């Protein structure tokens, strides 16, 4: 009864991973529904082409999860986010190694500013970046 085609299983695995930002019960429910959809839409002897067509019609897992949280913009990792991460981490590590305080403070401040400008960071990411920077 469970979908066994490797392409379908791979899709469900990716969906399950991307949906980790949802509350547990919502994630489980969503994945179960999509699995059910695939079971309903595929004959027992489904070909690769059949599966690919069905998955194309379903759309990318990212879009499905984005639809489950309309209050949040889609997760993006742009240059600003990468820059913020580098500054936050290098600033923190420099300070613990006793290097010139001015350099690491500047790095942490820039990182925090970049993080606060980023609209993609929220929830766990923002908290993690706070920990990395040593303080809010």
């Amino acid at each position, binding site marked *: 009864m469970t979908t066994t085609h490797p392409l379908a299983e791979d899709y469900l695995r990716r969906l399950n991973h991307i949906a980790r930002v949802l509350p547990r019960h919502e994630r489980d429910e969503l994945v179960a529904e999509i699995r059910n959809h695939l079971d309903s839409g595929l004959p027992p002897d489904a070909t690769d082409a059949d599966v690919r067509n069905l998955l194309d*019609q379903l*759309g990318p897992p990212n879009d499905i999860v984005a639809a489950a949280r309309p209050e949040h913009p889609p997760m993006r990792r742009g240059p600003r986010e990468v820059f913020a991460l580098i500054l936050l981490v290098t600033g923190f590590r420099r300070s613990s190694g006793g290097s010139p305080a001015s350099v690491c403070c500047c790095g942490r401040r820039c990182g925090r500013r970049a993080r606060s400008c980023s609209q993609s960071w929220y929830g766990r990411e923002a908290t993690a970046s706070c920990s990395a920077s040593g303080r809010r």
Partner: protein
Amino acid sequence: MCSVVLAADVLSQLRRGALEYCVLALLAQEERYGFGIVRTLGSNDGMVTGEGTLYPLLARLKKAGHVTTTWRESDTGPPRKYYAITAEGRRALADFTTQWRLFRDAVDDILAKGTT
């Protein structure tokens, strides 16, 4: 930053807003299972981009109390989750239908005048 609103964006937002009421309208006739709803709406060109996005929408309708769900055994495969509209769902649908018709008629009217 571009301040012009693209027609495609407007229609995308309208589509998103109207979709849950289209789902309710389908369910107002009879209860349906997820795959059936998705297929019916998906076959209507311009209604849905990715069919999978309908499942979170159905979950939202359930959370809002506009639909209820029941699992039923099926002869032709795995058990199916059936969606049924609630009284509250019918009220929401009736509200939307009234508002939508006013809006649609007003826009059509203005567009017709604008293009003559």
